[in-house]
């Protein structure tokens, strides 16, 4: 298990370095997904299977999809498509593919070994986590709710269209 931990940690470090050094956002995104998966494996080996599952579902799943939505909304023209074709050479996806293959190998290994004995750590299961969150840390959970409320109210206000734009259209109609 210890070897698996170091491999996963190495993959996480390499892929994160690749994320911040890419110039194209999609290429960075490929590495970002790999980085999240490697982090999930690290969490799993350290005895936090629930955190590992959340890492995959929330980060590698939802957040990455959100980023793709944002890129879609940037409204790229046709030139962007041809450029994308030019960029999407094997050079680009071979790196993430190798790293992902490594993670895949680890996954198979972990399943093969079976029992998830973490490296010298006590395994925290979901029940224990829930008891902690809704026991001593209940106030922290509720504050988390307030945090989300601040975020949503703020985003709702800022996300509205600027009135400035409407004024300009009105002026054009008058002409």
């Amino acid at each position: 298990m210890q070897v698996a931990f170091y491999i996963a940690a190495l993959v996480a470090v390499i892929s994160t370095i690749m994320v911040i050094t890419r110039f194209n956002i999609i290429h960075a995104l490929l590495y970002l997904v790999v980085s999240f998966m490697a982090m999930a494996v690290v969490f799993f080996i350290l005895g936090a299977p629930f955190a590992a599952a959340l890492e995959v579902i929330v980060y590698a799943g939802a957040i990455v999809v959100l980023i793709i939505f944002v890129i879609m909304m940037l409204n790229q023209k046709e030139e962007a498509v041809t450029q994308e074709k030019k960029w999407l050479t094997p050079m680009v996806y071979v790196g993430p593919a190798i790293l992902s293959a490594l993670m895949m190998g680890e996954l198979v290994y972990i399943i093969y070994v079976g029992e998830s004995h973490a490296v010298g750590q006590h395994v925290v299961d979901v029940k224990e986590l829930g008891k902690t969150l809704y026991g001593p840390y209940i106030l922290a959970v509720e504050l988390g709710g307030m945090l989300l409320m601040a975020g949503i109210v703020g985003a709702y206000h800022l996300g509205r269209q600027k009135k400035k734009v409407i004024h300009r259209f009105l002026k054009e109609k008058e002409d």
Partner: protein
Amino acid sequence: MEFSNINIIDVLPGLFLVVASVLAMISIAIKRNHIFIFVVTSTSLMGVFLFLILYASNHEFNVEPLFVIDGFGTFVTGLIVMSALAVSLLSYAYFEQREERKEEYYILLLLATLGSDILVISKHFVSLFLGLEILSISLYAMVAYLRKRNKSDEAGLKYLILAAFSSAFLLFGMALVYSASGSMDFTGIAKYVSANPTLPLPMFAGMCLMVVGIGFKLGVVPFHMWAPDVYEGAPAPVAAFIASISKGGMVVLLVRFFDTINGFQYPVLVLAFACIAVASMIAGNVLAIQQTNVKRILAYSSIAHMGYILVAFLAGGELGEEAVSFYLVAYFLTNIGAFGVVAILSDQDRDAERLEDYQGLFWRHPKIAAVFTAMLLSLAGIPLTAGFLGKFYLITSGVHAQLWWLVIVLVASSVIGLYYYIRIIAMMFEKAEGSDELALHPRLYLINLITLLVLCALIIYYGIYPQGLIEQIHNFLQ
């Protein structure tokens, strides 16, 4: 199951704010009404304050594992709540004049106050970070609240990116401290620190990263770059909020954290904070001299003031805590008053931020000019104002702890600071020549004037007769 060992009364101040913000949100969903939401906000803030006076004073207990409710925390919570009330009183007239949707502002204001309140009473990294994030996230939206102004977008974006970045620093620092000490609780860290007379490397790295995060929130040199731009772009009441409440919460947290873990036993950290204090005092005052924008001048002056307050923080001990408490009161009153004057003079198009807007103010609006003069003199630390006594307190605590260099820099830089405060005052007494096209046409609201006059009266009252306030602080800190 140990579901709830929390006594509901202990956390009632926070609960008040939470309930008020939810109520405000529901009232928006039903019908938008500026006055109603304003009344809800003010009443809840008043309610918290009354509760603190009637019940919570002289109580000391822990709400395990996140909060500690002691005299210091209670005192500053009361101060924060009253300052938030002053800000909301000033905001009402300010936002009433603008066509934007005004109601969401009050939800954010309440939540930001809640965040600051949590910072003040937290004794655990989890509550520290949650409080900080509630405060920051509310402030992102508040800074960029006026969507029609280009500058507010810029300010909001700058604040968002830099604050998120500094939060990452803080989080990484906390992770390193946790990995070294095995505890996120301040008392747990204190145990580890007392067992390690020399600073271990992971702890050192973690502390440094935490200083970056905290320094950003305080806006001290060299983490101050955001301050002038954000103050300039933010609506005037929000700038008042950032200058006072958001920084005050962080100051108290810093004092509590270092007091609990006894961080001053490490000379490296003391040296780091001393350098930050000196740099802030000098840079803040020197850079303010060249500015012609009143909001930017106030921003640089608040950088310098945070440097002053760090002197009392470094002095530590009971006197240091007392000095910090007194200075926070004076600083909150003065800054909210100063930004309140900017807010009251602003009209629909822009805020009253150019120095020329104040030319001849004494002849146009003598009352406002008198209030602004009092605020600026208090910021400069002229006798008979609360600012003077606050600074006097800081110097006393610095001398007591024999921080000679810091005290000398404090006095010298205050003298530099006098120049730009007096320049604004001189501008107000100058006769305006001719009519300016860009002149502002503010609508004056009685509520604003009354708030400003009360703030001004308090500053002068505490400047002449501080015994009452000092006794209160003594009572709370015991």
